[in-house]
């Protein structure tokens, strides 16, 4: 579609017939589209490039998603179960109520997450303040933490022995703590906000940073009140990134598992929880498969609607370098905003993290030094550095593979009108039950022709499957916001397609690429479910080591789990800062 793939000949032609300033080229594009869309050869090569860029990612999906999924569905539903009987069982087992709760809590969680995340995204996009890089890194840390560990922090903060309860008990002379916020819908929503706010902060924030503030200033000069400027100018401009973030948050909450079980308690169940119970406790694989299918179809439907909308929402924008759009807060109003939104972000995300780190130090450094000991000589003992090394190796592999597959795929999708159909496919793994897919991996990828059981590659592929949607989601809005005029100008000046990509696209999407890389890294560092099913016990990751400690009573085990979690937090924060600092030599920060 764009000029990048046009054969040299047509570019030569243009160079002679048209003037070369970017502005004019873009005007010409709108006036005489024939120049750019005309030749059949052009359309043909464009199509070829489209498939060539997309092929690796599609092949990957085919082998590591559709093939194992088909295998588990065949194993579950193959034993001659009548669809009618299954539908009847679905109807009688409260599936509608289950679906209602799943969708309802996901909608509420998404709305709340956006509400908490938007001021933070604005804060990170437009203001400079001391400690910003570290704070930005810390906001993503929740994403990697095991739910059991997060539940510990929440119990300390909002449970029966919370500071507020202690205060109320001593002030009012109460025997029992008056407030316990846990095991309520509120606790579920709060935990979802805690986990997912980072998606809004990063996806929307990185997009916002490049929006031209002069558009808003113009509206204000024309007399629009601030809310109107936000509603009629900023929000419409943000929509592509905002909807991408909202979709990811929704799917995450829609398939929520640990948060529901541990912080919501057994009274609450999502589809994902029901699938797990039917599979593991009742061994009812047909019912589990039917529920898994509903969850996948729900994800697919939602993603299709989103992707269709996205085509209409996204438009090329006049982007500015992030440096030029942000500044230090000066006016009292700005300062108030910065302090208020910092408090919100720190309160929701920082406080639980701090609580964990503080508790890990309750035994002095003992919980940390104990990590390096193996007094019982267990064959499964892993020194903390080795677990860290395993985690980092898997995360590096995942980040590399997800970028290598995701970047070409995003490049293909942004230039193809019907790309949205394919785009939706990449989201499916996020909406697929982990236990279903895990069992699919075991039966499909543990035998010839593809016997990968126990290999590190299998773990990396499983993690990449989840990481890929993040890379695509963070890249697409950025790519679609680039004015074609810029690429056309570069091409007109004689740059071959790859040079156009390096000179024009790459600097602009670099921030989005870093966001994608950060989430790929994060997904891998924090993943537990699939890893515990397919990893070799000799190569445990940090989350696996944390769970091992939490399966035994005693102060030392609990302390070591917290120490390991703090280690995980620190390493991830350092990793995020490092990824953000990475920049290809010669490119300017944008």
């Amino acid at each position: 579609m764009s000029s990048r793939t046009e054969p040299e000949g047509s570019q030569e032609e243009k160079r002679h017939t048209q003037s070369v300033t970017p502005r004019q080229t873009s005007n010409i594009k709108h006036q005489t589209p024939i120049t750019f869309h005309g030749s059949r050869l052009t359309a043909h090569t464009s199509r070829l490039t489209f498939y060539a860029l997309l092929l690796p990612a599609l092949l990957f999906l085919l082998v590591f998603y559709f093939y194992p999924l088909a295998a588990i569905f065949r194993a579950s539903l193959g034993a001659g179960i009548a669809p009618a009987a299954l539908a009847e069982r679905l109807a009688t087992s409260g599936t509608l109520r289950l679906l209602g709760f799943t969708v309802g809590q996901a909608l509420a969680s998404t709305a709340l997450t956006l509400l908490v995340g938007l001021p933070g995204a604005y804060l990170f996009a437009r203001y400079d303040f001391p400690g910003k890089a570290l704070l930005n890194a810390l906001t993503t840390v929740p994403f990697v933490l095991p739910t059991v560990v997060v539940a510990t922090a929440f119990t300390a903060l909002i449970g029966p022995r919370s500071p507020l309860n202690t205060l109320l008990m001593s002030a009012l002379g109460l025997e029992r703590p008056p407030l316990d916020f846990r095991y309520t819908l509120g606790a579920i929503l709060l935990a979802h906000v805690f986990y997912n706010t980072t998606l809004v902060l990063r996806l929307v924030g990185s997009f916002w940073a490049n929006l031209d503030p002069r558009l808003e200033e113009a509206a204000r000069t024309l007399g629009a009140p601030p809310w109107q400027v936000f509603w009629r100018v900023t929000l419409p401009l943000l929509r592509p990134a905002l909807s991408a973030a909202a979709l990811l948050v929704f799917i995450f909450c829609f398939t929520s598992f640990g948060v529901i079980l541990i912080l919501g308690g057994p009274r609450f169940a999502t589809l994902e929880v029901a699938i797990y119970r039917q599979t593991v406790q009742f061994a009812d694989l047909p019912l589990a498969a039917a529920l898994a299918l509903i969850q996948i179809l729900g994800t697919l439907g939602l993603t299709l609607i989103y992707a269709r909308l996205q085509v209409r929402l996204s438009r090329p924008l006049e982007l500015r370098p992030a440096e030029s759009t942000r500044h230090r807060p000066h006016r009292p109003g700005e300062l108030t905003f910065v302090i208020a939104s910092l408090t919100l972000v720190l309160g929701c995300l920082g406080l639980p993290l701090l609580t964990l780190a503080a508790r890990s130090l309750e035994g002095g450094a003992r919980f940390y030094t104990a990590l390096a000991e193996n007094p019982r000589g267990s064959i499964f003992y892993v020194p903390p550095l080795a677990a860290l090394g395993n985690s980092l190796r898997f995360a590096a592999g995942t980040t590399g593979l997800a970028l290598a597959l995701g970047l070409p795929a995003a490049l293909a999708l942004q230039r193809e009108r019907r790309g949205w159909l394919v785009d939706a496919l990449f989201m499916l793994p996020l909406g697929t039950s982990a236990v279903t897919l895990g069992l699919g991996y075991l039966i499909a990828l543990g035998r010839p022709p593809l016997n990968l059981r126990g290999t590190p590659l299998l773990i990396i592929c499983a993690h990449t499957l989840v990481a890929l949607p993040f890379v695509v989601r963070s890249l697409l809005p950025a790519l679609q916001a680039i004015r074609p005029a810029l690429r056309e100008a570069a091409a007109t000046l004689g740059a071959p397609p790859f040079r156009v990509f390096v000179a024009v696209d790459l600097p602009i999407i670099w921030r989005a690429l870093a966001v994608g890389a950060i989430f790929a890294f994060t997904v891998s560092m924090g993943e537990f479910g699939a890893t515990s099913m397919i990893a070799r016990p000799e190569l445990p990751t940090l989350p696996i080591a944390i769970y091992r400690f939490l399966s035994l009573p005693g102060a030392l085990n609990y302390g070591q789990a917290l120490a390991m979690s703090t280690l995980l937090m620190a390493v991830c924060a350092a990793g995020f800062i490092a990824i953000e600092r990475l920049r290809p030599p010669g490119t300017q920060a944008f």
Partner: protein
Amino acid sequence: MNTIKQRWFCLSLGLLLLVACAAPTPPPARPRTLRVMVYDSFSVSESVIKAFETQHNATVQFLKAGDTGTMLNQAILSQENPQADVIYGIDNTFLSRALEAGILQPLAARPAGLANVPPELQLDPSLRLIPVDYGDVCLNYDKAYFAEHQLPVPQDLRDLVRPEYKGLLVVENPAASSPGLAFLMATVDRFTEEHYPDFWQDLLANDVRVVDGWDTAYYNEFSGGSGSQGTRPLVVSYATSPAAEVYFSEGALTEPPTGAITAPGTCFRQVEFTGILTGTPVADLAEAFIAFLLSDTFQADIPLQMWVFPASQTAPLPPVFQQYAVVAQEPVQLAPDVIAANRDRWLREWTEAVLR
């Protein structure tokens, strides 16, 4: 040039001769690999496994496959192409499902070590599942709380619905946690099929808290354990938990802060089994491994690694077990076929009575 060539020739000839001479004596066989499927919390000392490996010229490869339910599912789903030769950790609540699925092959001969295992643990006469360890799921209590409030420790499950124990108990969801399921079965046995849902209704009225897993119950709800930050002094845990509290305090405690209630009919005994997966190419090695699992070497290693009791009565117990670990008196033991026949229904009825 020539001399060098000749020398090479002689050397190769010599080597060839050497090889030819060496050929009749067989080279040491490469170690065979034994794949053992275990659940997440399985553990064993490195030296113990080394002993088996040296003795049998084998390499033991462990596959951790999730919790017991997930592990069994994996074994069933991959029975056409088994991922392991031996499976370890199927308990008496899953025993019938494993036997019915046909994933196990009987041992060729009765292992000698089985003679030291009490007959009540030997639940599969077909020799497909061999008992290796057992543990009692019991109520644990916070000693400080009961002393401070001068409250007697409950000695019967029925006590739990009395007003003085209101709001004190936390239990695990039986549909998600194995101690939770064990406790549910103890109540079924204590109050009969007909009346156990009523007991749970009363328990609910007495403000019982249900959480999803053992870790949440013990660390976030229970008040007694070191590191626990809850407020409830009664929890469903294991009879060995107080001993683990002392052991993992690293000398800070000489008395456990918690106690296990082991009164008759209040505990449920979980027995864990091992077996050979059908279709293994190394059946003899698998059988040798199971014999080894019943030997004192492995049995004595069980307590500190997995905090359960060895099945063999001749295995010595570590001091911390001798001093602090208790065995339930007359624990509830339901027959595996009764469990298999009713388990789904109990879980459904329980969910209906407690969570709705």
